[in-house]
């Protein structure tokens, strides 16, 4: 009997070898994210050992909004990352355990597949590691990870883990993986700008002018530009994905007063004051702005880039070399935009708001 089975099995290679379709196992439970083509290839950006599955996404979502992951059951990821604010919290600096203040503003979470080196200073290169950090960080949720596992067991999460990962085992690795799956599925691609790119709407004259200014590096006397697209690249409006090239010193402070930024991670003096370029999608709902939330409005942000740049040793050359008027090396750095041009850029920034993302029930608190 055994030999017969062996015989039948031995025919199997014949059956698949001449199949014109390549054989590939199908994950039945796959969660479809369907981002637009112009975001760029992403399949290779999803770790092969952690594909996004429906059950993994649902577990990640439950964990994202699970207050038991904080020491006093008062905070979840969703506390500082609120969907209606494009997963930010409206505060300059986020409050963690017992109201302790962090040093930086909660970052918006969207289109994370096309970025690496997470956090303002690039501390974590993998989403899984980044996701676990706030849980245990004393100024955030302040819960040791082994206790997190225990609390999830007590709350009856084992069945959810079984559905997502095939066994009842709850462990730190799986918590990180589930959170990463949920966050990778947070795609924002239905703003008015996307609708324009798909040819569905006509932008206003002001939006169109702002869009062109946004993506144009100015050339004095030849080309008006607001110089945003040099760092906020392409339709994603986020930073360069390659290494730390998407980290820039955007002239917030001088050498004496500036925060370390990327230097805290790399130890290199030339990285001082360089911070991660955030996506500008949904930027109109994610005030206040900059890594420390120092600007309340988009108008203040435009004023900063136009006439508030402070020189320093590490100020980005793309800012030094961006002006609509000829600038001599000893002059202050000025973009020289007109009031109308600033308003137009802001009109374009408002085009990046994606109501369907902010209100998508799949991303809401399931508890």
């Amino acid at each position, binding site marked *: 009997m055994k*030999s017969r089975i062996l015989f039948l099995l031995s025919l199997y290679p014949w059956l698949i070898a001449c199949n014109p379709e390549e054989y590939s196992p199908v994950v039945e439970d796959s969660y479809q994210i369907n981002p637009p083509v112009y975001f760029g290839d992403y399949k290779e950006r999803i770790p092969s050992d952690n594909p996004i599955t429906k059950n993994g996404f649902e577990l990640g979502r439950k964990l994202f909004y699970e207050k038991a992951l904080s020491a006093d059951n008062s905070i979840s990821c969703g506390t500082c990352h609120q969907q209606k604010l494009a997963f930010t919290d409206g505060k300059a600096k986020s409050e963690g355990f017992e109201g302790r203040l962090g040093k930086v503003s909660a970052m918006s979470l969207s289109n994370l597949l096309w970025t690496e080196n997470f956090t303002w200073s690039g501390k974590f290169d993998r989403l899984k590691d980044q996701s676990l950090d706030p849980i245990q960080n004393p100024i955030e949720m302040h819960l040791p990870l082994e206790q997190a596992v225990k609390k999830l067991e007590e709350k009856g999460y084992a069945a959810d883990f079984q559905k997502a990962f095939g066994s009842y085992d709850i462990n730190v690795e799986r918590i990180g993986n589930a959170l990463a799956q949920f966050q990778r599925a947070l795609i924002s691609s239905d703003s008015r700008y996307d609708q324009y790119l798909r040819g569905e709407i006509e932008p206003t004259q002001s939006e169109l002018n702002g869009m062109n200014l946004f993506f144009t590096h100015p050339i004095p006397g030849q080309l008006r530009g607001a110089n945003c697209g040099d760092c906020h690249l392409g339709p994603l409006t986020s930073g360069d994905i390659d290494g730390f090239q998407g980290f820039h010193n955007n002239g917030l402070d001088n050498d004496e007063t500036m925060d370390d930024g990327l230097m805290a991670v790399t130890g290199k003096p030339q990285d001082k004051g360089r911070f991660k370029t955030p996506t500008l999608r949904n930027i109109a709902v994610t005030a206040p702005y900059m890594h420390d939330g120092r600007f309340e409005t988009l108008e203040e942000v435009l004023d900063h880039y136009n006439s508030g740049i402070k020189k320093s040793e590490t100020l980005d050359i793309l800012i030094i070399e961006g002006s609509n008027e000829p600038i001599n090396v000893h002059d202050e750095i000025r973009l020289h935009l007109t009031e109308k041009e600033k308003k137009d850029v802001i009109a374009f920034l408002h085009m990046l708001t994606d109501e369907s993302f902010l209100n998508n029930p799949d991303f809401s608190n399931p508890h």
Partner: protein
Amino acid sequence: MKTIKNKFIYALPLFLALTFTSCTENEEIDKGTLKIEFENLLNGEPLQFEGFRYNRDEVDFNIAVLKYYISNIKFLDEEGQVIFTEPESYHLLEETSTRKELTIEIPDLELQEISSIEFSIGIDPEKNLSLDNTGDLDPSNEMAWNWDTGYKFLLMEGEIFESDGNRKGMVYHIGGNENYKTIKKEVKAEIKANTTATVEIKAEVLSLFDAPHYININEVNVAMGGDNASKIAENYANNFFSINTSN
């Protein structure tokens, strides 16, 4: 003993199956591979990045990143006839202090002798203004400008150090349909069965600023369109690439 014999008989198809699992309808034809290896040079020496200072036009400068698109590669025979056109031929070559992607590999080639190679710098107008592209044209690879302007064909960034300590950038982003340039170079390469032939192409950075238009990098430290970008494009069409055929 009988049982053992039986088992062998049963297992025989397994051995056969594992030995010959290819379809007989695809006759194996001998094919070869061509590898095109680019090397970036400055003053004839391998290009060095941050931390290494060069001098030209009475200023010190360094280079942080150099990227350019090589596209629409064709091979020609000695009569100048096109004998091979690479489909979907778009290759982004990049070099930074931590990254070096300067090789183009074209596999599954017919056996042939190549007398010259034609390729373009940049993206042809048809592809240039559609950003729903993938692979090396993937718009998230930071070479796409926007919908209306298409891609940066060549990007070089660095820093100029003036004697009084002032910081100045070097920023050259060259693109635009008018700056799409096609060049032809003689090569000697023979595609042989099951082997890889190699063509080495040198790219001399300073030739971007040299001829036919001399460009003073301290005066023109930024070019992102306009006349200066066109001059640099005419320079890269002229003498940026060279192939040593004396091997």
